[in-house]
């Protein structure tokens, strides 16, 4: 957990040098960048050595992709959190890295302040859903009537409340605005999003992968 106001320790993994330096410049003093890597092997080694709080992870990487980094770091260092960052909006890529264990997904066109706040949120243990990821998840789980709120979290279906939250995020609402809209606390919105993330990661139904493969676009 990061103390409010403290600078999260961040590690960058991206195979484009230009992009890494761009992100570094944008993040500025808001975070402490403890290192960067451009491919899977080096990334795993350095992350295990430096133990950052948040790893900004490119989905597409030489040597196995972002999911390989998550899969290899997670068993040894479960406290390291991953935020996936990608120009690819192919649904299967995104769903893949989330299911491997990343705590969120944002597109590379995200603005500097938004990225900083996403990093903070991930560092504090929350999930970060971009509108696009929310759309993917709604699409994958279906928008038909959801479970009653408070249903079994292990079930491969979203509750009505979770659907509402995801819909608002997909419509461009920040967590705070979504909370106001639903007359609930921001914390509750975060809880719902984290629970959706867990369902996404635990669900092993074939539909999810089949959906992702069929619909690798937006």
């Amino acid at each position, binding site marked *: 957990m990061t103390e409010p106001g403290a600078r999260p320790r961040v590690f960058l993994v991206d195979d484009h040098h230009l992009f890494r330096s761009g992100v570094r410049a944008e993040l500025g003093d808001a975070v402490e960048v403890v290192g960067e890597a451009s491919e899977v092997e080096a990334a795993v080694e350095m992350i295990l050595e430096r133990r950052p709080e948040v790893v900004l992870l490119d989905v597409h990487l030489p040597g196995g992709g972002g999911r390989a980094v998550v899969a290899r770091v997670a068993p040894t260092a479960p406290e390291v959190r991953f935020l996936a960052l990608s*120009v690819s*909006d192919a649904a299967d890529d995104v769903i893949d890295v989330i299911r491997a264990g990343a705590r969120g997904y944002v597109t590379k*066109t995200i603005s500097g302040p938004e990225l900083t706040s996403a990093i903070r949120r991930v560092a504090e243990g929350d999930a970060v859903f971009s509108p*696009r990821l929310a*759309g993917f998840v709604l699409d994958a789980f279906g928008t038909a009537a959801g479970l009653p709120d408070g249903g079994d979290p292990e079930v491969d279906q979203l509750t009505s409340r979770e659907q509402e939250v995801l*819909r608002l995020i997909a*419509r*461009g609402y920040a967590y705070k605005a979504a909370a106001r809209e639903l007359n609930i606390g921001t914390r509750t919105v975060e809880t719902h999003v984290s629970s959706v993330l867990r369902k996404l990661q635990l669900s092993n139904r074939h539909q999810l992968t089949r959906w992702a493969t069929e619909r690798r676009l*937006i």
Partner: protein
Amino acid sequence: MGSSGPVTDQMASSDAHPGRTPRTGPWTRVTRVRDGRVLGGVCAGVARGFGLDPILVRILALALVAAGGAGAVLYVVGWLLLPEEGADESLAQSAVRDRRYDPAELVAVGAVVLGVLLLLRGTGLWFGDAVVWPVLLSGVGLAVIWRQAGDDDRASLQRVVGRIPASVDVRSRRAALARVVIGVALVVGGVGAFLAASDAFSAVRQGFLATSGIVAGLAVITGPWWLRMGRDLARERRERIRSEERAEVAAHLHDSVLQTLALIQRNADDPRTVVTMARRQERELRSWLYQGDRPGAAASDPAPSEPAASVAAAVTRVAEEVEIDHGVSIDVVTVGDVALDDRLEAVVAAAREAMVNAAKWSGAANVSVYVEVAEAEVKVFVRDWGCGFDPSAVADDRHGLRESITGRMVRHGGHADVRTGAGEGTEIQLRMPRDGR
């Protein structure tokens, strides 16, 4: 054509090509010529080595061929042992060093061939030693030449082979060679059958044995060759497909990405234009990469003419157009999809108007558009976080909102809601029930 006889007389002669690596051994002065060859350049080479007229040597060689076939064997031996003009080693030398030959395989094939031949000879299916051995030796020699040969030698062989059955094209030439081989096998088998029929019953069995022996031998000999040919063809096809794909990608990148990058460099002092162009290019490239070869998906034309087929595609396209026209960025998220009809086209048009309004009046740099195709209805939300407005205060001059959005939706059986307030941004919500659901 020539024979090896006169050549051996020149064993002691000196190197005729100073400046090249001197070769030791007897074949230093006579080389196969490159120009003016009939077949392998052997006769002309021998003639040049001895200062004779090539015609003379060729006539001598043909005479030797006619006299029991010795000329053919000698010619092939000469082709193998004499280096080509300008080459450092003969085909025989390069064959010895060639790693493609597996000695065990060679011995095995050789043994099988020899076995089959001796069997045939034993059963009486034989053309006579004077014919079979020269033909066999020449055949083996030609095979080695074919594998080792450079372009000139191959061309010569191709000419000869091409004359026998048909064309000169690589693949059909190979096929032609195969036809000859199979044809020979059939003829031999036919002779066997004939003999079997005219002789006693025991001869039938012998003839059958002999024929199957021949067929098996041929299969063993040519098997690896067929395999290799199959692999070569498959590889060629794969490479052709790959290079075609590469060319297509290069062409597309050139038409789109490189053009945009050039434009961006020229407009570097105008951030708004740069952002717009970069976003447009991003969308285009994205749809090209992830929507595969859907028609129209890769169109680099900013105003594509053919209509979009589905709600999601139509809203996405409309958003691109508004982005270009008004310099805002519009994020479109779609869930589910359905084919367009009249009513849904009205929804798309209303959504477009809402996006234009947001771009023109809200002052926000980003607009979010969310499309959901549910069981019962299609919903579109257009959201900005700009200045918002008081609907009652501006109702009269905002025809866009009243006519183009609310009115249009109602006329088609749907409805539109506007949620706004000063400082809260604006959200236009469009709902259209789906038919028969």
